[in-house]
């Protein structure tokens, strides 16, 4: 059986129904253990004090915000090339999740910025490009919502996702050019991996795993919903025709 078989909605529904509970439980476990460990059982950083605890939320959210877009790019390409409906619907399902992760990265970053840099918001390249990423997510979701016909919407959002990716990369570069920025600067002792003390690193790894699993869980669940909604629409339309 080829891998593409799972792109058939029925196969996908069967498989995802079996997998979903395990992923969900694993996500919950990783997140709870990682966050509790990080919040209650790690020491303060000598330089950043207790704000280092924000690390456990900020970094995984920021990583997944980008990875979600990459996943949408891949599934969009799959849809355009091989026309597997599940692929398009997975991209649709992932977008709000990615947006929420982006917003989490922005909020935690802003809250972190207040004690560290003395300002909520700074037009730092990394922060700026995240803001732009949030705009891409918003536009993508708005386009999905604005179009009635599901296949048309899938096609157009896929085109947008691909073109948008190119421009998102360009923006990242442009923004770097425009302002050198504070983020990643010397103010962070955690910046390089070898500098990260193990006490901070292990819970962080758990949290990253938790965010990844949470993302998978949510995308599976939401893709299942989208497939059902799609079928529902088709059945209703057929019913109307008699």
């Amino acid at each position: 059986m080829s891998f593409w078989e799972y792109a058939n909605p029925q196969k996908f529904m069967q498989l995802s129904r079996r997998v979903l509970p395990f992923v969900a439980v694993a996500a919950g476990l990783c997140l709870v253990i990682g966050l509790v460990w990080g919040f209650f059982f790690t020491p303060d950083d000598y330089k950043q004090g207790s704000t280092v605890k924000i690390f456990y939320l900020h970094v995984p959210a920021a990583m997944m915000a980008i990875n979600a877009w990459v996943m949408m790019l891949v599934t969009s390409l799959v849809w355009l090339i091989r026309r597997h409906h599940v692929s398009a619907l997975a991209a649709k399902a992932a977008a709000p999740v990615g947006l929420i992760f982006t917003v989490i990265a922005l909020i935690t970053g802003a809250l972190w910025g207040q004690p560290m840099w003395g300002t909520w918001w700074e037009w730092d390249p990394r922060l700026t490009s995240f803001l732009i990423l949030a705009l891409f997510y918003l536009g993508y979701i708005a386009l999905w919502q604005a179009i009635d016909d599901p296949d048309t919407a899938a096609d157009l959002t896929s085109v947008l996702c691909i073109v948008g990716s190119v421009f998102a990369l360009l923006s990242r570069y442009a923004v770097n050019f425009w302002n050198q920025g504070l983020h990643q600067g010397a103010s962070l002792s955690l910046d390089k991996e070898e500098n990260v003390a193990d006490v901070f690193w292990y819970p962080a790894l758990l949290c990253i795993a938790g965010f990844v699993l949470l993302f998978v869980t949510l995308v599976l669940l939401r893709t299942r919903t989208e497939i059902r909604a799609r079928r529902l629409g088709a059945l209703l339309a057929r019913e109307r025709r008699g």
Partner: protein
Amino acid sequence: MMPDLGKYAGAVLGSYAATIGLIVLLVAVSLWRSAKTKAALAEVEARQGKDNG
């Protein structure tokens, strides 16, 4: 039990509250939509099953 967060308590607690809040919201919305669609689909399938034999 509660660790001493010092003068950064607001930022740290705010981050955790915002993050957990947003994630819970997202999960809740996803579950709610899932349940709603599932029920609607089941209803239509039952109805059409009856009509079409």
